[in-house]
């Protein structure tokens, strides 16, 4: 389907649908709006998206990067109407039926892009698109979850400018905490509290190192060299073998 963008009226109607969906979880999405020129306009440059199932947010980010490459990336990342339209187009994936047979949309910013720094990354399509554009395959740690979910690494990194904008830091975190065999976050890596070598200790340490070292000039492996011994078990594998959370939620 040719990519379109919601007009103000389209966004208003989509927001109204999300509101109503919270009250009536079986309500059918208003897919007819997708091609209705009363609610939408064509994108600035021709682009096409296909209806398909994405195995992860990373795959969605990768696909959208290719599909939307004709569009100016700077303008695209701020195009609230276009990301709203894409959310409706892929609504069965960004808001699938849960195990109780209901759709639970969550906050509006998961479906309608909010440009505030605290919220932009919560958009379930714009977030993966932006993160994949910034970090390419190194974004796997942040985007290995199903499209309708986010993980703790994603939330914590995206809310910190010095983390999400730094390729070396994201690469280093991926080398430590992403399990490429299983395609998921290593067990225990995202645990709460300051567990040695886990996510929040990584955040503390990188913040300290960022004051002293020019981290923006460093690769992931070079940053790993600066970390203390508590991170060694994570470098070589997964130190936690028992069952635990992988931070997906």
């Amino acid at each position, binding site marked *: 389907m040719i990519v379109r963008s919601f007009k103000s009226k389209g966004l208003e109607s989509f927001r109204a649908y999300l509101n109503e969906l919270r009250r009536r979880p079986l309500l059918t999405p208003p897919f007819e709006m997708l091609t209705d020129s009363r609610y939408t306009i064509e994108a600035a440059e021709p682009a096409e998206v296909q209806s398909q199932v994405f195995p992860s947010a990373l795959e969605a980010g990768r696909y959208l990067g290719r599909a939307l490459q004709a569009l100016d990336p700077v303008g695209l*990342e701020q195009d*609230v109407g276009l990301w709203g339209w894409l959310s409706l187009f892929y609504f069965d994936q960004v808001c699938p039926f849960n195990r109780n047979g209901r759709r639970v949309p969550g906050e509006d910013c998961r479906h309608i892009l909010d440009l505030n720094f605290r919220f932009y990354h919560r958009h379930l399509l714009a977030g993966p698109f932006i993160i994949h554009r910034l970090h390419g395959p190194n974004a796997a740690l942040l985007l290995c979850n199903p499209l309708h979910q986010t993980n703790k690494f994603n939330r914590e990194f995206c809310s910190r400018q010095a983390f999400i*904008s730094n390729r070396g830091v994201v690469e280093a975190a991926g080398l430590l905490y992403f399990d490429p065999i299983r395609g998921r976050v290593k067990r225990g890596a995202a645990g709460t509290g300051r567990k040695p070598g886990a996510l929040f200790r990584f955040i503390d340490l990188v913040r300290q190192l960022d004051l002293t070292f020019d981290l923006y000039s460093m690769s992931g492996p070079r940053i790993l060299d600066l970390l203390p011994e508590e991170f060694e078990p994570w470098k070589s594998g997964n130190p936690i073998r028992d069952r635990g959370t992988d931070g997906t939620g």
Partner: protein
Amino acid sequence: MIRTFNYTGRKRIPRTRVVVRLQDGPGGPPRFDASIDLTGLGLPAEARVFVEAYRRYLFQRFDFGSVGRLVPPEDRNLIDMPPRSLVMFRAKVVSLDEAGRILAAADRIIPRRSENEPTDKLSLLPVDFMDLGDLVWRLDLEGDWPSLQLNNRLEGIRETARSDDYFLSLIYPEVVRQILNRILIVDDYTDPEGDPDDWQSQWLRFARGLMQDKRLPPSGFSEPDLQEKLGWIERAVEAFGHYQRVLERYDRARTSGKPS
């Protein structure tokens, strides 16, 4: 009271030593010029100098040569940054050794947008333009510096924010109130000399400068402390209103029947 200590050994480059001018080229990406004065800071001549532009998750880095020989790169286009958006800058001096230590830095530099802006004054409230849905404005206190976000779907909003008497008299006092509330009530930041380059320090000094009574409220979260802080904030907002003649401006806009 929040105080910050520098254990890193790196030097602070005063923000007044780094002046960045940003131009929104017609049809092209924004482009910047930077003048950096590192004289007298005791930095090694061979140390590298970088200027970094950043906005949210976006980041671009420019090699400005060395302390002893500053050479701005030819290409200073901010190709990833949206036009007319709030971009912040930092300047870094980095050692040549393998460790890549930061020897000195100045962060959160707000660029000047026009030649007329004086270089010796800092902008306390940069403005950012974006799609805010149904809102006209929003104060962003989560970024590196407080900024006023304006809805770019409104034609002429830049001029309105700059000179419209309705806007100035109704919006800015509330902006000042929200910012001081954040500094004093939420952050309990009451010492403007603690880190003079912090935005909190600069806003406190600005507010205190408008007031007759130069005493600051006490630090703390007890009920009396909070009451004193709230009273101080209201007096600061009143002083701002007096300084900006907001009542007169509002009345002028009202009686003229249209925004000025």
